[in-house]
């Protein structure tokens, strides 16, 4: 590569740095500025002046300081060592950094690590992007498959023997000069290629009843979680990170609280993944760019996160990116736009906000990988609407691009109904396809049951506002039973305690059992009312046994729900 000429810093305004004299630099190229070699990205080139966003504190940087182009876009090194790690938005390892972050951390030499490599290809094989060269048991839960990077093709002329190799040794050679190591670079803003995109039709089981039963998401799909502060957004996302049946979770803490990260890092290693029986950290990669860390690295963090998820997808895994919160990412865009004097569109956000959001969510998908496996990237983004205003630009645009919306309701949160996913604004565009999936697997009524429950909740909301005016006792008996049933659905099924060992995670059979139990009781109540039993008598029956059933047995238990329902049906029989 030609040594690019050094440029000079001309202007510094926080993370915005203007450089002149950088010959041959490309837009989106990475550069280093000043004596501390602060990393930055060229955003604009105008009449010889490069405007860069710098991913570190620029205090002390003065006009006249040197700057160099690095000849490559913002990239991350992908290879074994990601799982269980904690990184900042530009993929600097936080595990290796000091207590207080400084720009000097990134210049620290990294300890090379040795990995046990098992070759899966042989010298002489014809290989292309996606071919599995070998595997590394990176963690007990995940086998890391070392692939030929996308775009490479040729004859494998040499491959390393099985055994421990260090991360800076070559592992294979393709043709005469393409060398493969454990780690390869990929530009974060560029989606990694797949062989073909496939329709998403398999459920991603989150273990959260309100999501799996009412607003399900498919593997490879997208969802957005808008919620004002105090509505339990982060709690819900952490629950998903803990219990979802994705193979690899990339958790991006984008501009959020430091103590929440401390909680995750404290809790995840101790929690056991229900499927692999291993520590949750073994399948988790954490990108932590908390709110007080450099703003532009926050902007990069969600791309870093989704790139890692794509990397694991390419190995044939179902991976999931959880970005908390995309609003903070959008604010970083806005801050940069404001400092560079771009024309603002809505609420000061740059006009490119909606296209950037769309492009980000578009990186989710169910696909056939270059290696031929079916795998997926699911993207869940939190949104933090200012003042709970759902019409603000980030929320409004995100809603247009995602397939599921889990809208957190302040009234539910206020009533300590968690997870506070409301049923008036939430939607799932995957529900129909997933209903066919359930139907094909022996539950043809899945879709009808879901629609019935959502309709019941909607009707009860309407009835409740009527009841507030005229009093509950003035409602017809059938409608009083609807109110009762909706309360039962809320308490016995939708509310779920993240703090309870029995209830934090719920398997699909238990979910179905709880829902069936409630619907059986509801149907019986309707029959009784039709037979002339007054609603007041039914309201007098203590239904709390059903509300407690979810917490009586473990995550797989279906007995407690059935028993509670039988018991209530007997009690209802007795009042006839």
């Amino acid at each position, binding site marked *: 590569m030609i040594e690019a000429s050094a440029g000079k810093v*001309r*202007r*510094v*305004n*926080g993370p915005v740095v*203007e450089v002149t004299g950088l010959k041959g630099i490309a837009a989106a190229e990475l550069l280093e500025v000043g004596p501390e070699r602060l990393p930055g990205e060229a955003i604009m080139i105008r009449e010889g002046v490069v405007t860069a966003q710098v991913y570190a*504190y*620029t*205090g*002390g*940087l*003065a*006009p*006249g300081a040197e700057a160099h182009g690095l000849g490559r876009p913002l990239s991350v090194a992908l290879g074994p060592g990601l799982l269980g790690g*904690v990184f900042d938005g530009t993929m600097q390892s*936080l*595990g290796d*950094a*000091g*207590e*207080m*972050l*400084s720009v000097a951390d990134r210049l620290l030499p990294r300890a090379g690590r040795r990995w046990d490599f098992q070759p899966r290809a042989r010298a002489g094989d014809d290989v292309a992007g996606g071919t599995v060269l070998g595997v590394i048991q990176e963690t007990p839960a995940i086998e890391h498959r070392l692939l030929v990077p996308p775009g490479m093709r040729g004859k494998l002329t040499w491959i390393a023997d099985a055994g421990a190799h260090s991360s800076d040794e070559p592992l294979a050679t393709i043709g005469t000069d393409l060398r493969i190591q454990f780690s390869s670079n990929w530009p974060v803003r560029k989606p990694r290629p797949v062989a073909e995109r496939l329709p998403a039709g398999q459920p991603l089981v989150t273990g959260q009843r309100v999501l799996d039963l009412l607003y399900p998401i498919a593997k490879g799909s997208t969802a957005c979680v808008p919620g*004002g*502060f*105090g509505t339990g957004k982060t709690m819900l996302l952490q629950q998903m990170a803990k219990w979802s049946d994705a193979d690899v979770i990339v958790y991006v*803490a984008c*501009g959020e*609280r*430091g*103590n929440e*990260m*401390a*909680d995750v*890092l*404290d809790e995840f290693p101790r929690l056991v993944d229900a499927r692999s029986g291993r520590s949750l950290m073994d399948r988790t990669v954490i990108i*932590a760019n*908390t*709110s*007080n*860390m450099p*703003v532009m690295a926050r902007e990069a963090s969600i791309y870093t996160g989704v790139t890692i998820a794509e990397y694991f997808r390419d190995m044939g895994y179902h991976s999931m990116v959880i970005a908390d919160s995309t609003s*903070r990412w959008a*604010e970083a865009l*806005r*801050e940069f736009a*404001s400092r560079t004097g771009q024309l*603002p569109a809505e*609420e*000061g956000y740059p006009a490119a906000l909606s296209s950037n959001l769309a492009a980000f969510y578009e990186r989710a998908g169910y696909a056939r990988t270059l290696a031929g496996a079916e795998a997926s990237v699911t993207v869940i983004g939190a949104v*933090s609407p*200012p*003042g*709970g*205003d759902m019409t603000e630009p980030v929320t409004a645009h995100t809603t247009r691009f995602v397939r599921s919306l889990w809208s957190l309701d302040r009234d539910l949160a*206020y*009533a*300590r109904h968690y997870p506070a996913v409301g049923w008036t604004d939430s939607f799932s565009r995957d529900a129909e396809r997933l209903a066919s999936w359930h139907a094909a697997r022996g539950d043809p009524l899945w879709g009808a049951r879901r629609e019935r429950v959502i309709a019941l909740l909607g009707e009860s909301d309407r009835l409740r506002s009527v009841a507030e005016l005229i009093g509950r006792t003035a409602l017809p008996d059938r409608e009083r039973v609807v109110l009762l049933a909706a309360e039962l659905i809320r308490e016995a099924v939708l509310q779920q305690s993240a*703090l309870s060992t029995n209830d934090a995670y719920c398997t699909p059979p238990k979910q179905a059992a709880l829902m069936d139990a409630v619907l059986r009781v509801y149907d019986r109540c309707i029959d009784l009312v039709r037979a002339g039993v007054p609603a007041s008598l039914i309201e007098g029956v203590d239904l*709390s046994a059903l509300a407690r059933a979810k917490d009586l047995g473990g995550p797989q238990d279906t007995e407690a729900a059935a028993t509670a329902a039988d018991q209530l049906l007997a009690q209802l029989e007795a009042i006839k």
Partner: protein
Amino acid sequence: MIQSRSLPVEYSHVTSVEGPLLVVRGVDGVGWDEQAVIKLDSGELRHGQVLEVDRDLAVVEMFEGGDGIKPDGVRVAFTGSPIRIPVGEGWMGRVCNGRGDVIDGGPPVMGAEWRNVAGSPINPARRVPPRDPIITGMSAVDGLATLVRGQKLPIFSVGGLPHLELAAQIAAQASVEGSTFRIIFAAMGITNADADLVRDALEERAQRGELALLINLAGDPVVERILVPRLALTIAEHLAFDLGHHVLVVMCDMTSYCEAVREAAAARGEIPGRRGYPGHLYSDLAAVYERCGRLRGRPGSITQLPVLTMPAGDITHPVPDLTGYITEGQLVLSAEMQAQGVYPPFEALSSLSRLMRNGAGPGRTRDDHLPVSAQVFAALARARQARELEEMVGADALSETDQRYLRFASEVNHSMLNQRRDEARSLDDTLDRAWQALAVLPRRELTMLSAQLVDQHLRTEGVVG
């Protein structure tokens, strides 16, 4: 006490003075965010910070504002480093202004070391989750929204309510078990009368060498307010992470702070966001609020108690809204509770300490603490419904149970939450008062408490369940 000694290179080519901003031409090697010292004709010194450097131009924001500055009669020097202050135990017992200059008549504070007031972000991978309580002596906080060491828990108030009294009372009487405790009280934009109130309340603790007071009065330079929390937190970080103290930083009023940020942003001609606040207010507030917590392998902690007044009581206003997104819960004060004669006028149902479940309960406070507070919250929510019903149908039409709930709420407000302004309650006293209030309810209503806890604690004289 930010640096103000004479510096070798001085620049005198000032091209413009606009509000707090000063533009100097002909500078060489001046870096972004450097500290500037501005020397007026009269010999007066002002202090500032470099907001932008563009070739040989430097834009300086002056904390004391631009009034009285003549462009041709002023010299500007740059210190070559960001704004720094000395740190150390020397701050304890001292009172200073918003720039850190002592105003208690004593000598300047000497410190072993000078530190950048902007601080450095704490590595999230080196944090430990907050786990242990601070006992504030206030039943409302300790009982229902426990403050945890390393937490940031703001007080949301409105004008006219005694939030300053509450903050000062907590600063005066809070304690941690078995460790040393230090308090930094940073007041921003408060009136002279309020400053006197704070001084009086904190005098004793300051004399014991456990507290420092930073005061920026309502009449003091506005832009200086941006500096105040940063000075306080720089001193606190040293006390906590180098010297091993548990430190509580009280910051009042954060709304005044945010207004100063808005004023400075407007002077720079930044594009305004919601209600005229700049788009970077979230990052700015986070840079302040995130400077708290605990570090692995270090004994100390920093806990923040920011106080803010919600303009017109609007919780969706950017200041409480952005604060709520960063902090770990909120303590809400309301005019309604004030009207009932309750001090502190704590609105329990709107308040929440997100870290309470980690910092209270067995081994930390008392075994019954978490279930009792959960039961009190649940019963208060039910009492609110009963009150709404009462307003529609009248008290006589309420069921016996609903009437009990109303009596319960009144008991909580007047016997548990309400306390004297000089009263430091023990946690035992607080929880016993909670049980006393719960005794008003029929026993079957106490669904969140185990039978064992109820038998152990509930005194049911004269109460039938």
